């Protein structure tokens, strides 16, 4: 698509530039035809009894037109032809060349002057137009090149991020597990109970970290492969909030969790498995990026035809310039002086993919009173299915 657009622009450039570079024989032909037409008009003028000056005007117009349309060569040719035709056909003695008067020389000079000036002016305008078109084409080409470069750079950035993430998130836990388990195997008999337990705890923790990373990677791959089918079903939001909290119980241990779901909140259509995953990722995020023991709040509300789910924390918050970037794949919030987090840099990207798949959106804000809050908006469209009202009679 882009290539053809450039091609067209170039074709236009050459179409405009061509007559300027070399007037073809066809241009001389057209000049002859035009001058013949002028001769006819001049003949009509003579018959009408118009003054000689008007007849000259007819030829002058011819020269002007030739100069404007066909360039310098044909217009010089037209000037000669005009003076010749005028001299032979309209100046006595008719039918012969006889420039007896100085005034005809002046007329020739004027015609030639008009021809040269007009053709030069036209040529300049054509060149400018051509240059502008060429410039536009070049700008298009540069813009496309820049776009391609940007895409490539983005792909490159993702690849690098994936590689560094892989090497860090796969290698670190693997190295830890290998080290701790070999220590237990070889030195276990001389280690005290507490050391052994610490090493075992490390192995267990690092294994679940590894699992977390692989699961996120697999899920992101599935989401990106377009294999994501959203099974929307009408359901109460407290159900998905409850199941997400149930899955995160261990990770949130020691944090007060407050839920705010107004009584009588209507049901909403969404994919329970996917929205649970989004909430789990948001809770996981809160657990990782805020100090241990600080509260986490989960709330739901209906606003303007949307179900709003919110996970708020009491952590340090997210700087404004990072609020959009946190949803990018492999982007990890780095704070000066803070240790790199154990996150995969994929959790929030998965949330965003889930929000988009639902026709909704997700964004980060400052929590009033400090901390960050993530809000997931899901559209409420249609109405829930009905079931027989006499249910209780069954």
């Amino acid at each position, binding site marked *: 698509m882009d290539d053809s657009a450039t091609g067209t622009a170039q074709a236009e450039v050459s179409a405009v530039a061509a007559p300027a570079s070399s007037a073809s024989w066809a241009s001389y032909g057209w000049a002859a035809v035009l001058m013949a037409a002028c001769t006819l008009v001049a003949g009509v003028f003579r018959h009408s009894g118009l003054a000689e000056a008007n007849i000259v005007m007819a030829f002058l117009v011819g020269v002007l037109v030739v100069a404007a349309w066909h360039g310098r060569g044909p217009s010089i040719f037209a000037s000669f032809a005009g003076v010749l035709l005028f001299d032979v056909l309209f100046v006595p003695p008719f039918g012969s060349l006889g420039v007896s008067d100085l005034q005809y020389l002046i007329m020739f000079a004027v015609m030639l002057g008009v021809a040269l000036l007009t053709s030069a002016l036209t040529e300049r305008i054509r060149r400018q137009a051509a240059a502008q078109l060429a410039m536009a084409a070049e700008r298009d080409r540069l813009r496309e090149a820049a776009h391609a470069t940007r895409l490539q750079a983005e792909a490159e950035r993702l690849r690098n991020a994936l590689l560094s993430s892989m090497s860090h998130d796969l290698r670190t836990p693997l190295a830890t597990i290998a080290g701790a388990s070999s220590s237990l195997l070889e030195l276990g008999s001389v280690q005290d109970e507490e050391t052994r337990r610490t090493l075992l705890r490390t192995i267990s923790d690092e294994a679940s970290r590894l699992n977390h990373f692989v699961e996120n990677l697999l899920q992101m791959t599935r989401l990106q492969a377009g294999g994501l089918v959203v099974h929307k079903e009408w359901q109460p939001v407290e159900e998905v909030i409850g199941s997400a909290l149930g899955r995160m119980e261990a990770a949130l241990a020691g944090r007060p969790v407050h839920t705010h779901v107004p009584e009588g909140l209507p049901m909403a259509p969404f994919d329970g*498995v996917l929205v649970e995953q989004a909430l789990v990722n948001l809770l996981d995020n809160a657990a990782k990026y805020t100090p241990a023991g600080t509260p986490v709040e989960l709330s739901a509300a209906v606003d303007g035809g949307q179900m709003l789910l919110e996970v708020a924390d009491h952590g340090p918050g997210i700087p404004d310039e990072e609020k959009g970037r946190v949803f990018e794949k492999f982007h990890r919030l780095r704070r000066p002086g803070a240790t790199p987090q154990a996150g995969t840099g994929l959790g929030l990207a998965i949330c965003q993919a889930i929000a988009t798949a639902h026709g909704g959106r997700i964004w980060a804000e400052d929590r009033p009173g400090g901390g960050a809050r993530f809000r997931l908006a899901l559209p409420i469209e249609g109405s829930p299915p009905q079931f027989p009202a006499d249910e209780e009679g069954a």
Partner: protein
Amino acid sequence: MSGAKPRVLIIEDEKPIRGFLSASLAGEGHQVVEAETGREGLAQARMWVPEIVILDLGLPDLDGLEVIRELREWSQAPIVILSAREQERDKVAALDAGADDYLTKPFGIRELLARVRVALRHAARGGAADATPVTIGDFTLDTGARRAFAGDHELHLTPIEYKLLTTLVRHAGKVLTHRFLLKEVWGPLRTDDVHCLRVFMAGLRQKIEVDPSHPRYLLTEQGVGYRFADE
């Protein structure tokens, strides 16, 4: 538990997983037999008649569903499935085909032992309705008197809610699929009406739970069904 050592059959093709399951279950006082393929597992089951089967859904030779169906032709021993997270659909199909519970890999040994314990307990009761009151946490269900309590206040339940609740409590600790609950409570003609089930579950949650959005008893297994907490 009971004096006799329960016999456990593990059907799993991954040797390391078989190894750690076997070691942990033996450590808990179970007799363990391992099988590497579905066919071997079925043969072992006929020979050895286990009291519980732990079955991996992704076997190289037979579909996990096939193994469940063949086992269910002659055995009522509880089956606990091991599945990967992306096998969501297979998991529900396996439960509907007669499996009793599932664990998503990777799982901790504590979860596994809890599932095995619940499955064995239900098998021992034979699924028969029990007239003795059941107490779990602050919740009490007295089927003999047809009364239920949350803390010290009595729950006022509609007939459907009561039926739903007794079904859940009878299988406490065990995941029940939407289809199973619909069949038990509404009969075999309404097994696809998940929306209806959700509406009644929401009503029950409002009556039983202190915070319905952070439930203590009525737990949701997204995409699968519900589980009543067993402790």
